[in-house]
């Protein structure tokens, strides 16, 4: 199960992802980000500090949005989740930061 919350903070949208993202719940993540983009958001911070597990399907969703005309910065990955990103090579494609401050700084 996954829960995605969206808060508008300054010039960006903060998406907080809580729980597990597996094949079925990846659809929820997909919908939540899609909705945020449709409502006009261009800059996103994705807080993954409470993301316990992400499957390949979930990674596929995040990877999809990389191709869109938006700025998306992910932060707060725990060691295990970071490892999953790394193995697949997504750490080379997505902007991943350690903390929210770093992420905000990267957003500019």
């Amino acid at each position, binding site marked *: 199960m996954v829960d995605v919350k969206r808060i508008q903070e300054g010039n960006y949208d903060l998406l907080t992802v809580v729980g597990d993202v597996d*094949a079925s719940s990846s659809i929820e993540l997909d919908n939540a980000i899609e909705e945020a983009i449709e409502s006009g958001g261009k800059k996103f911070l994705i807080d993954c500090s409470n993301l316990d597990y992400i499957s*390949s*399907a979930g*990674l*596929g*969703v995040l*990877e*999809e949005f990389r191709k869109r005309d938006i700025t998306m910065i992910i932060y707060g990955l725990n060691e295990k989740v970071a490892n999953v990103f790394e*193995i*697949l*090579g*997504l750490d*080379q*494609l997505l902007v991943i930061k350690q903390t929210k401050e770093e992420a905000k700084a990267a957003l500019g």
Partner: protein
Amino acid sequence: MLLTALSILFSKTSGLEQSVGDEAPPILMSLFIFALFTFYKYRIERAESINFVDLLWKVFVTGLIATIVSLFFQLVMNMLGNTKLAENVVFLDFIYLSNFGLVAAFLISTFIVWKRLILYQKSRFLLTAWKIFEYALLVGLVMNALPVTIVENFEDVYLIILILVGLVLSVNMKWVAYLNFKQKWKSILLIALAMFYLGYFSFTLVSASSEIADKTDAFLDIRENIFIIALVSFIFIYALFSLLVLLFNLPTSSVFEQKLEEVVSFQKLSQSIQTEQNEERVYEILIESSVNTVFADAAWIEVDNEKDGPKYYTHKIDVEGIIKIKNHLKANKIKGILDQGIDKTKNLNKYLATLRGSPYRSMMAFPIKVKGKQEATIALLKDVSEGFNKENSKIISTFSNQAGISIENFRLLTEALQNERYKEELKIAKNVQSSLLPDEIVQDDDYSAAAFSEAADEVGGDYYDTYRINDHKVAMIISDVSGKGTSAAFHMSQMKGVFYSLTQHDMSPKDFLDSANNALSRCLDKASFITTSYYVFDTKKKQVEFSRAGHCPTLYYSKAEGKATYFQNKGLGLGILRNEGFKNYIQIDTFMYSPGDILVLYTDGITEAKNVKGEEYGYDLLREAIQKHSDAPVEEIKKEIISELYAFTGTEAIDDDYTVLIVKFN
């Protein structure tokens, strides 16, 4: 028999010496009756049809034939007038005996029919009583045949007993209840005719025998025959009883028919759950059965449908009329009629009477519930006030409950079938998937290899394969397709195609992955990707070149160092970056191998396998397991790894595919 009796009579009257004994005729007569009994017993009792009217018809026909023949004799007698032949006692006896034979046939056949009627829905007691009666009659028959008269009064007493037993048996009239109105009328007619025949025969025989008795005493007088008298009495009594019971039952037959209709309707509803019928059919049967059983003048079923609005099944009323009634009820604030909870027989006359243009004065409605949720409503209308009684309300309530159950069952059945179909599809996908895996691994003098792959219940997308490029080069691949199910199996087959078409060109691992990414980018779903590691073994150089495309890091055990490590190299899954930039994320690694070294290829199903506590098997346990069993032959290492993995998870059921390929260098 006829002949002997006549001969005796003839001899006696002629004063000639008898050639046959006195006792012969009664014995022969008894035998004749017995033969008739056996004949009819087999003919009527064994008859398959239990149709009561048919049975009575048989009685009627037998009687009719007997009467016609007997009337023919009478006619002959009349034609002869007062000729000498008509005076001849032998001739009279001949006529008499012939008549007797016919009557006996009629009596016996009727007796057997009565037996069937009485024994309809028999009990053990009734069966015993009947047997006693039959044997008693037989004894009467035998007594008749014996020339000796034991006690004069005894025969009379015995006769009375027989008649009494017959009387007791005659109260069994259960069959009458199963006749409908028309059948009852027919039966009354047939029984009345049978009684008429009986009376006519008795009269003919008795008068004939008294006539003969005036002239000679050497003949068979049926007036003395216990068997015949008892039989006639019994048949008469039962016929009389039946006639009366039938008459009295005539007015109630419609009730019985209605009950029968209810049972049939109920059965129809229950049967409508068969697969070829659908929910619509259940509603159709419900409305038809309900209207027929309570004699409603109009009826409708409203099926709630959130999407397309309500659907109506109607009987002698149109949707416009229904809406008019519904609106009228709403306007008058009549609650409860179209939902459950109140007395359905409530008098709605004063409400319905105010609805102009509608002839209906009473109404009842019941919900049809499926899994406790009201899915439809059945409403019945009658054009008289207080048209439905409590009984009607109970029946319709039962019907609508049964319809609900039928629909529920029907849905369960459909669901089960779909489930079955889904399972079948998965099975096919699984078969396809397993057929994509190689039957054997390319072996070489430089190494020995063993593979294990177990698919989860839901089809996954693990793939491994080997290919000999030339005499000193072997290619090896391991892949994991993202996602599960049939699409994963489909992508896996694409991966296999890519592998076989590219590997034969003897490419470097990096070029191989770049070309594979290029090819797969054009065929994978938008969010799908494949992780892969590709290895090229060069047995001349004793080295392995490999590249990783987002797949789990390769585990390598070095015998010299005595420990296993994971290669840390960069990579990116196939299909993630679908352009030229992909090759920038791929690197080539090379290592030299020496005897005793072990290369372990696996998929994340292994490292992510969880135990009951939710802990993952992880990289460390896998590494330790390889180190522990590094000295064993490759097959054994494989077995140990797998059994350790299953021991860790504590279950045979797996969430993800397990694939492991172990290569041990010689």
